[in-house]
């Protein structure tokens, strides 16, 4: 809902280190200037175009059967009925895509020692998180693909999940990616010295800090229409997010 108007933010003396910038502004061309945005006019007249508005010739639509659980082994995927539904062009599983798409390993070079399991486009033999795509149904229309999706049957076997950051490293908590050894992604110690002494003198027993997630995931819509060139050339020639 609407953010409350902050009537309590007072002048800078209430906020430490908030002194106004006093550097040389002579060369600053854009700061403080209202930059005209020529595309606004069509947006205020309902003439914006978003991914959902884009209809390409012979465009197909893909929808996903997603994991309803946090951790499970996939026992069997039954897609025969879905394939028989009208308008269905294809049904793909994680293994189908893994044959043509290499996994992504999300590590950062400036964070030495960070671990990340290979991420495939869709789950292979296990579902690792609720919402992970497991089966893709491609239809001539979105409605036909959605209808066929109702006929996908996935049999799975629940596995113990790691749901709490505070217990994720306990020996009794399931290791979600056994090949990584444990559930620890990354650790860094910063010791400038004197910590034990400071705690001893101040008598602090310790504290707990809560922070927001630092990896934002927008919950606005995401979409990607793709068009290919000639039949022998599968490179996308049109992409939009």
């Amino acid at each position: 809902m609407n953010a409350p108007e902050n009537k309590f933010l007072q002048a800078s003396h209430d906020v430490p280190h908030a002194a106004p910038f006093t550097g040389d502004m002579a060369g600053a061309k854009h700061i403080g200037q209202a930059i005209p945005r020529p595309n606004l006019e069509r947006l205020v007249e309902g003439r914006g175009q978003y991914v959902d508005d884009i209809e390409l010739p012979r465009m197909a639509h893909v929808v996903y059967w997603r994991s309803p659980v946090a951790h499970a082994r996939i026992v069997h995927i039954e897609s025969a009925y879905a394939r028989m539904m009208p308008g269905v062009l294809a049904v793909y599983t994680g293994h189908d895509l893994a044959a043509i798409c290499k996994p992504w390993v999300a590590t950062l070079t400036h964070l030495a020692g960070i671990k990340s399991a290979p991420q495939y486009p869709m789950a292979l033999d296990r579902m690792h998180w609720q919402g992970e795509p497991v089966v893709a149904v491609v239809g001539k229309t979105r409605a036909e693909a959605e209808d066929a999706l109702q006929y996908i049957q996935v049999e799975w076997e629940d596995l113990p999940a790691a749901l709490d950051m505070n217990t994720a490293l306990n020996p009794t908590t399931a290791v979600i990616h056994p090949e990584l050894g444990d559930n620890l992604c990354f650790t860094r110690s910063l010791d400038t010295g004197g910590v034990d002494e400071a705690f001893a003198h101040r008598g602090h027993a310790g504290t707990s800090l809560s922070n927001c997630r630092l990896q934002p995931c927008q919950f606005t819509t995401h979409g990607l229409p793709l068009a290919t060139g000639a039949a022998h050339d599968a490179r996308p020639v049109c992409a939009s997010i």
Partner: protein
Amino acid sequence: VRGCLTLAVQADGRHVDTIEGLSETGEIKDLQAAFIRHNALQCGFCTSGMLMAASELLTQQPNANREQVREWISGNYCRCTGYQAIVDAVCEVLEARRQGASA
């Protein structure tokens, strides 16, 4: 109404206004201009709904104050602007129309 929740048959026999229609007639030109002037939109996805809601407010409650503007559009989500510029724009048009009406 919520366009995504209202079937066309539910509007049978009714008059339907759309953002395209109001743009054609020019009746909310001042509101659209105020949105642009205040940069009250980024991606524009919510803008049609905001304009339609604000247009209704201008008709129904020409004396609305800032709080009432906020309450009126509280059913419309905007993920870009933080609402301030939208409320600024609507309040400005309310004031301008009031002045125009009394002049």
